[in-house]
């Protein structure tokens, strides 16, 4: 009998596991895939390491900061600031056809860029900041207000609204077209007011730290252990049955499988509405270059681009929509003077994709389309950054199908369902949700989600 079973060995599940194991619970984390990480994972191909998910960690605050999600999660998981080896970004850009706005980990850069490009909006940007800083993350009522409506009341230059929305939606919006104001505030703070960073070794470094700590505390991890169903008796979850038939009993269950996905696992739930699932999935192309990006004049960490003055955030009709995207170079972080950095140049480009269209392709078509859209993404991206294409020596592309395999989310939805379950509760008193569908996204956000749900369980056990 476990005190807690956690479904999913991603950032949120592992963080929850560490908290509970630290307080002497008997905890088992079950992972369907053959590796840990969920959306933020890694793999090896042709002798090279690749990351899935993570471009940069948002919510970066420097050592010594007391406030903010990063400081909070380090305290809660008993990590020192140094352990995640976070190196700050060099600087990023929001690039639209006529205007570029640079931003870094010091908000003053973004403020002066906005003032330079939109002189009349100085006071309005200040008003927006007041709204964001005042905002309390977990006020349910305000959370779902329309961001587009609120921004239109504050900012009188439509292009600036689109430019602010572009990175905030790209990095954490599970809703099409508009965005929950609560989610917007979280993303704005995490990107612009806190900042971006990355460990040199990528996401695997953080995952390794998490899994080591979890095991040291006596936690159990079972890979290739998909849950067939959650067994419910008299209104309580009593345990799970794995796909291989093994039965595990637990006093409580925390699931990072997603809201709908978790409901579907419960053997007392006869039907769920698939229309509630998220629709937004991505393709990502990773190009390995024979030069460092800086050697071809590319020094930005991230470029959020959009090729018109109107930013569209919607599932495409076609396999992909490359009109907007994110370009990231993991080389372009400040790893410090003593650190040689990454041995090869890397450029990652991300575009929107339609899960159903990718899912229905034959294997042959799938490979052809991956190549076709790899070319299309690079063509689109090089309108905004120096043309890196003749330096490409290797590449890989992952699609909504890959994301589905790593996360098991319906539709390969990167940011989960549009409707968040902020309190993490379900129809069962001892079944909780954590991860994207509870409401926090990003590396730091998902760990905070796991911590918050573990704390809820700890409080309940007192």
């Amino acid at each position, binding site marked *: 009998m476990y005190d807690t079973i956690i479904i999913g060995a991603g950032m949120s599940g592992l963080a929850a596991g560490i908290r509970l194991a630290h*307080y*002497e619970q008997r905890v088992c984390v079950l992972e369907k895939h053959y590796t840990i990480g969920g959306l933020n994972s890694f793999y090896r191909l042709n002798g090279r390491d690749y990351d899935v998910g993570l471009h940069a960690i948002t919510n970066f605050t420097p*050592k*010594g900061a*007391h*406030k903010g999600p990063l400081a*909070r999660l380090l*305290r*809660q998981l*008993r990590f*020192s*600031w140094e352990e995640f080896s976070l190196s700050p970004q060099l600087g990023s850009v929001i690039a639209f056809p006529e205007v570029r706005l640079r931003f870094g980990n010091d908000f003053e850069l973004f403020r002066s860029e906005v003032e330079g490009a939109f002189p009349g909006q100085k006071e309005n940007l200040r008003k927006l900041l007041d709204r964001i800083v005042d905002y309390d993350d977990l006020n349910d009522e305000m959370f779902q207000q329309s961001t587009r409506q609120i921004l239109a009341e504050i900012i009188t230059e439509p292009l600036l609204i689109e430019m602010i929305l572009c990175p905030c939606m790209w990095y954490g919006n599970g809703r099409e077209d508009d965005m929950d104001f609560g989610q917007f505030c979280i993303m704005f703070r995490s990107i612009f007011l806190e900042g971006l960073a990355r460990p040199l070794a990528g996401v695997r470094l953080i995952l390794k730290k998490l899994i080591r700590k979890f095991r040291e505390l006596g936690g159990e991890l079972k890979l290739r252990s998909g849950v067939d169903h959650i067994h419910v008796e008299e209104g309580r979850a009593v345990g799970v049955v794995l796909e291989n038939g093994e039965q595990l009993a637990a006093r409580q269950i925390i699931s990072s499988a997603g809201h709908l996905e978790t409901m579907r696992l419960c053997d007392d739930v006869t039907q769920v509405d698939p229309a509630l699932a998220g629709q937004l999935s991505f393709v990502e192309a990773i190009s390995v270059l024979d030069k460092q990006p800086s050697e071809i004049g590319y020094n930005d960490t991230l470029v959020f681009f959009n090729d018109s003055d109107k930013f569209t955030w919607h599932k495409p009709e076609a396999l992909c929509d490359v009109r907007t995207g994110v370009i990231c170079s993991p080389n372009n972080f400040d790893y410090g003077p003593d650190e040689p950095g990454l041995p090869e140049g890397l450029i990652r480009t991300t575009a929107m994709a339609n899960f159903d269209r990718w899912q229905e392709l034959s294997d042959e078509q799938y490979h052809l389309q991956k190549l076709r859209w790899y070319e299309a993404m690079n063509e689109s991206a090089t309108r905004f950054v120096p043309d890196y294409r003749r330096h490409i020596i290797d590449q890989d592309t992952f699609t909504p199908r890959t994301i589905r395999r790593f996360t098991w989310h319906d539709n390969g939805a990167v940011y989960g369902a549009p409707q968040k379950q902020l309190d993490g509760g379900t129809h069962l008193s001892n079944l909780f949700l954590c991860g994207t569908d509870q409401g926090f996204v990003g590396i730091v956000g998902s760990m905070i989600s796991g*911590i*918050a749900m573990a*704390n809820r369980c*700890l*409080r309940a056990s*007192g």
Partner: protein
Amino acid sequence: MTREDIREVIIDILSDIAPDEDLSDIKDDVSFREQLELDSMDFLDIVMELRKRYRVQIPEEDYSHLASMASTVAYLEPRMKDLEKV
């Protein structure tokens, strides 16, 4: 445990929760929230660490007694005076 022992226990717990913090000059009558910027998650940790280390149960309605070092020690003294320090 004496009041001084209990104070040391709390310092030890705080140094676990906030390892980067200098706790040597902590003021007993100023709130933890103000001095160390602790939030509600951190207060849960003080409660849980006391439970883990000394099996002291603190009900949720009593969390407000843990505001400062002075109030924490005063609250814990009757509950911990018969325990041995580890």
